[in-house]
């Protein structure tokens, strides 16, 4: 297709794989791991030079048939964002790489114009002059008035960080595909409407012409036709033809999804799934798409116009705007989706990667993660996961959740019906995830079959070109026949292939050349994401990234993959369980348990605030999870696209705001809007509240909570028993006069409170009335007002009456009354000598510790033999002693720690068995244990 002499042999790196790293002359113990980002600059977070814009943005451009490439709008629509960046130039650049074969018109051998349903193309392109790198997503919209009925558009995600584009390619692609689908669906709708109008016009014209002809016929009975009559007849004939053509077009556009569905060469399982989804989409309360055929027919009454025989010249008319092309509703949704994308990919790459890994891991623990995670985010994902991974044990799915999934009409159906990458591939990968694990257990994590990889790359790269100062690497994948192969291969090789070696060559190139352009046009988009994942990231990977490979690997491996260590244990577990929660298997070995547990407490302390593992490292070890990202990224945005904007006014406002080439502080504006959307949609970000310019908004909230928790731990020597109370489900009452102080502490301590369900933490920030038994059942952390007046005596008496159910932290007297704690878990969790200084760091530390705890609880709750008698004669005592020894020996729990795990296990059981989680409060569990008074 395209060729050029100076193509870099992108796939020819096998020779390096022979001896990946034989350089170091020093013995290993002396070699200092090189900083993985050294090639790129001393500081990986330093802004790349040359960029003329302050942060990433999305640009939508059109190749106008009248004026050529032109930028249409940017998201965020803020001149400050793109600054002096030349949008026109860049539009030209990105529009010039549209390789999609968009042929519309009269194909030879066809009587009527055929609509070609072109797949979008996705391109990565760099421009060193502008210091900009872009993911470019080309799409074609239909316009009856346009030349060949098509209008080429493109959406570009522009960033100064090429790594970000490359590594987030899959996610970007998935997200943009959704935006594109949304646009295209709206466009088809609009186009069909347009056609109908046109048909009515034509019909009307025909009738008029017909009557005119009849009149003429009647007028002259001379037996021959006047030239006028003949002209009329010709006109009539052309109108007839036009009608047929347009009807055909209408039929084509209407049959679009169905045709696509039939034509998709998916394997049987997949098709099933697709249909599944389609049917699901159909059954969901989706007014637009479920009534798909109606969609295009139900039009408001339209008065037809007479059509002049001669069509207007194309330069006379004003071309339709994008919004007109796509139906306002869909256009708004697309904008919402795009701003969601902008929001989603904000921030540094390493941040994105870690949060993705984090989310992916969280998703893996869909049975336990309700305990300590913020549920807004994981919620849909879990649902998604269950939906997409049939072989998994599906915990009680709340009906409410399935409802949540519903309102995603357009995306869902399009996803279901096209053979697009958005849905189908991640699903498939998901299913194979298990295989990967099994494989991972057999082969070493780092093991790698070069042959496989070679194959894989081969398949990917059919050709690559470069022109002038820029290099273009082009991978075209036209054939859908290869699909099954690539899929299976991808899933097998992706997670294990070390890109270490390849990167060497590539990084040379990075230095030597001005810009890189990686292009891939794939009609079957399904191929791209994982393939890219596997091969491309390495292209921009620095060679040093493997320097600390071993070290990092160990670290990461421990927490990501279930190594053989866990196998013995796993054997006793049920198979599916081990699969579900592979990350739960950390520290299954009781020996290795204490070591990894204690280290995290100190590691972050050394380089406070800096992630100790270079973020890029994770990618390699983590490919297995990579597949999940696609899913997880899909879900929130889907959510967003539909649910996020239930109110039209909101959209309108936002539209107005973003369209008015605004002079006001757009940053604010976009923030608030996106924030609004996230609030409304309960979607992606962990953080449904508070507008924060960078990153997910509740980051700040967490940070503060972490900071205050840290303060509490440092300030109060009896923090441990207090935290133990929270973890073991004993209600902690924080008593104080000052509401602000109490609230602050309650918020801080709430990070230790296990949730009962996904919906809310059982935390009551401020109460001033006497507590009641119901409160202890409902709340596990209560801020209570201390009133000096006699009225307050009732409160205190109630508290003392129910003292057996509560621990009381008296802020005014700096005293705590609660049961004794002698475990080892909380000291690790809340070490008052910790070097962690930052709230967010501490929050993460707590999260990780709690996750480990959850995994223990999971193991305990789901170990069959622990809870059921092995045979009929076994007494309860035997079972109980088995439980005790498991907790003690296998999980390494001492003293009161056992109760924490038992409590969490109870919550897990309850949550798992509940028909509809969140409907009932769990019972109040308590122990008859003496309390002690701690005082400063």
């Amino acid at each position: 297709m395209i060729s050029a002499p100076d193509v870099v042999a992108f796939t020819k790196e096998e020779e390096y794989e022979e001896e990946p790293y034989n350089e170091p002359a020093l013995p290993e113990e002396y070699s200092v791991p090189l900083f993985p980002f050294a090639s790129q600059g001393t500081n990986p977070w330093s802004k790349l030079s040359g960029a003329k814009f302050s942060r990433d943005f999305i640009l939508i451009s059109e190749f106008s048939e009248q004026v050529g490439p032109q930028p249409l709008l940017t998201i965020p629509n803020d001149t400050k964002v793109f600054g002096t960046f030349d949008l026109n130039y860049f539009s030209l650049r990105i529009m010039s790489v549209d390789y999609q074969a968009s042929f519309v018109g009269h194909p030879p051998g066809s009587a009527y114009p055929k609509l070609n349903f072109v797949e979008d193309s996705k391109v990565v392109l760099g421009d060193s002059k502008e210091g900009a790198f872009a993911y470019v997503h080309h799409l074609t919209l239909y316009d009856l008035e346009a030349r060949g009925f098509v209008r080429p558009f493109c959406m570009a995600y522009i960033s100064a960080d090429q790594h970000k584009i490359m590594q987030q390619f899959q996610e970007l692609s998935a997200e943009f595909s959704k935006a594109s689908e949304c646009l295209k669906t709206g466009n088809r709708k609009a186009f069909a409407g347009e056609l109908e109008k046109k048909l009515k016009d034509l019909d009307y014209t025909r009738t008029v012409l017909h009557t005119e002809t009849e009149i003429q016929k009647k007028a002259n009975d001379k037996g021959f036709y006047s030239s006028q009559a003949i002209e009329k007849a010709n006109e009539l004939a052309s109108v007839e033809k036009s009608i047929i053509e347009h009807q055909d077009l209408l039929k084509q556009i209407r049959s679009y999804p169905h045709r696509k569905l039939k034509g998709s060469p998916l394997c049987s399982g997949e098709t099933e799934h697709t249909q599944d989804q389609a049917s699901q989409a159909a059954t969901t309360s989706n007014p637009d798409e479920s009534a798909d055929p109606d969609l295009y027919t139900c039009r408001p009454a339209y008065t037809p116009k007479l059509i002049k025989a001669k069509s207007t010249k194309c330069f006379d008319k004003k071309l339709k705007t994008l919004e007109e092309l796509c139906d306002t509703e869909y256009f708004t949704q697309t904008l919402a989706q795009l701003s969601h994308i902008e929001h989603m990919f904000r921030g540094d790459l390493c941040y994105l990667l870690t949060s993705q890994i984090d989310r992916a891991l969280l998703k893996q623990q869909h049975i336990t993660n309700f305990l300590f995670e913020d549920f807004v985010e994981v919620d849909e994902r879990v649902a998604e996961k269950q939906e997409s991974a049939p072989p998994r044990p599906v915990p009680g799915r709340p009906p409410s959740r399935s409802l949540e999934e519903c309102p995603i009409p357009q995306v869902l159906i399009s996803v279901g019906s096209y053979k697009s990458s958005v849905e189908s591939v991640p699903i498939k990968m998901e299913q194979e995830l298990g295989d990967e694990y099994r494989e991972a257990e057999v082969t070493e994590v780092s093991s790698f079959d070069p042959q496989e990889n070679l194959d894989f790359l081969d398949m990917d790269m059919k050709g690559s070109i470069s022109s002038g100062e820029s290099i273009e690497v082009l991978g075209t994948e036209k054939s859908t026949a290869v699909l099954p192969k690539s899929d299976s291969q991808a899933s097998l090789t992706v997670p294990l292939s070390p890109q270490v070696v390849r990167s060497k060559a590539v990084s040379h190139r990075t230095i030597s050349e001005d810009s890189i352009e990686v292009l891939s046009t794939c009609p079957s988009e399904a191929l791209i994401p994982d393939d890219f994942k596997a091969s491309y990231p390495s292209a921009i990977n620095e060679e040093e990234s493997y320097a600390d490979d071993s070290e990092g690997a160990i670290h990461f491996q421990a927490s990501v993959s279930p190594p053989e260590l866990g196998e013995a244990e796993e054997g006793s577990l049920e198979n599916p369980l081990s699969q579900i929660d592979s990350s739960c298997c950390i520290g299954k070995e009781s020996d290795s348990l204490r070591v990894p547990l204690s280290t995290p407490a100190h590691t972050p302390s050394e380089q406070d605030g800096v992630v100790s593992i270079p973020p890029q490292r994770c990618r390699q070890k983590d490919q297995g999870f990579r597949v999940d990202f696609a899913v997880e990224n899909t879900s929130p945005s889907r959510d967003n696209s539909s649910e996020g904007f239930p109110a039209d006014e909101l959209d309108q406002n936002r539209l107005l705001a973003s369209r008015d080439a605004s002079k006001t502080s757009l940053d604010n504006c976009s923030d608030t809007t996106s924030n609004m959307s996230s609030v409304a949609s309960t979607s992606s970000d962990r953080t449904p509240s508070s507008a924060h310019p960078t990153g997910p908004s509740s980051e700040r909230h967490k940070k503060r909570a972490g900071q205050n928790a840290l303060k509490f731990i440092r300030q109060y020597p009896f923090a441990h028993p207090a935290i133990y109370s929270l973890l073991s489900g004993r209600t902690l009452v924080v008593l104080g006069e000052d509401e602000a102080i109490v609230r602050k502490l309650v918020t801080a301590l709430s990070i230790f409170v296990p949730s009962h369900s996904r919906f809310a933490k059982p935390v009551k920030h401020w109460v001033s009335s006497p507590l009641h038994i119901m409160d202890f059942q409902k709340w596990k952390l209560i801020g209570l007002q201390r009133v000096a007046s006699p009225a307050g005596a009732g409160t205190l008496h109630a508290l003392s009456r129910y003292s057996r159910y509560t621990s009381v932290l008296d802020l005014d007297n700096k005293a705590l009354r609660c049961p004794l704690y002698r475990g080892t878990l909380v000291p690790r969790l809340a070490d008052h000598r910790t070097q962690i200084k930052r709230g967010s760091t501490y929050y993460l530390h707590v999260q990780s510790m709690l996750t480990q705890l959850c995994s223990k609880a999971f193991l305990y709750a789901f170990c069959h033999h622990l809870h059921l008698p092995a045979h009929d004669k076994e007494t309860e005592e035997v079972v109980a002693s088995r439980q005790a020894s498991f907790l003690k020996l296998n999980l390494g729990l001492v003293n009161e720690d056992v109760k924490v795990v038992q409590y969490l296990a109870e919550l897990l059981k309850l949550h798992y068995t509940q028909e509809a989680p969140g409907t009932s409060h769990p019972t109040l569990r308590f122990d008859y244990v003496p309390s002690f008074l701690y005082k400063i």
Partner: protein
Amino acid sequence: MLRWLIGGGREPQGLAEKSPLQTIGEEQTQNPYTELLVLKAHHDIVRFLVQLDEYRFASAGDDGIVVVWNAQTGEKLLELNGHTQKITALTTFPSLEACEEKNQLILTTSADRTVILWDCDTGRQVRKVSCFQSTVKCLIVLQRLNVWLSGGNDLCVWNQKLDLLCKTSHLSDTGISALIEIPKNCVVAAVGKELIIFRLVAPTEESLEWDILEIKRLLDHQDNILSLVNVNDVSFVTGSHVGEMIIWDILDWTVQAYECNFWDPSPQLDTQQEIKLCQKPNDISIHHFTWDEENVFAAVGRGLYVYNLHMKRVIACQKSAHDSNVLHIAKLPNRQLISCSEDGSVRIWELREKQQLAAEPVPTGFFNMWGFGRVNKQASQPVKKQQENAPPCSLELIGDLIGHSSSVEMFLYFEDHGLVTCSADHLIILWKNGERESGLRSLKLFQKLEENGDLYLAV
């Protein structure tokens, strides 16, 4: 307990005086109830609980509604609305013979002077009777005769279809406070200070009518009779407001035993002083009885007494078992006694033989070996004497359940599901054995895993 919270010297004086109240610390190793579930459906005092079957019970109270619950899950199954005023009595009702489906029925009566028969499976009102002159205060079902009786200011006899068969004349304005069935088609009704024995005459060849005849009035009580229960096949027992307990022969209605001073503190001299201090007349009224083969357990004032039918004496007592009047007691199969009280707490007691008796001979023998036998014998003499007077058994507090914020009116014990308590704070609390529940949850978990096909047993 939270003295540091409430403030040092502000402990009410009264509490110090009530020190004989036996308390148990927070460590209650024998208390099995480590889980609770608060059930909320009523809007007023919940006074009655009745067990329907192995897993269901009904609750009723002053708000006039009857609620059917699942004792295992705490799920509210049905709410029966029909009475406009507070419910005064309820009882389970044997299914009609004619009825095909054996649904569980209950009979409720209310201050609105109606009686309603409910179907507890469907929540339907089966029948309603509203021709009463006065509030019905008690209901009993005589299954043998297929009739049921309602006691208000008069006593009415009804058949299963809720047709009035016959009734007595107006008995008193205070009305019948309790009714029990005794052999020979008789019932005993407590009306004020009197016990009236009625005989039911079933229709025979001569007369097709039912009739109810007053046989005898027993006037032995000095004060209002508060409690009346069947103890066994040979006797029934009554208790009055001034603490008289009379055991009657069930056949000839003669007094078998009369105790009116058994709460007399004289045997326990050391506490006499204090008991006098806090002994109010109210403290000796007998609110409730329960019994087993050997003993009658009486809730007297705020104390508990165990009266042995064979020995005809009190074998164990707990004079101040609660802070306030004990309202309901029940004997569990495992020698445990549960009591609930106006003070809002429920306490679990265990009837134990006093240890000294068994332990006595050992030290004697031991000391004999060393030649101290004589000394010891003398020393043991007074001990023995004391023991003869003192009750041979004791009620040991093994746990208390604190949850209600107001008086606990009644409770119900389920062998499999734990204890249900109802209270004036409008709540019902389900107390469960935490360990057993945990096991059940595990079972459920694995069942669900199995249902989902996710359970593969490790080979």
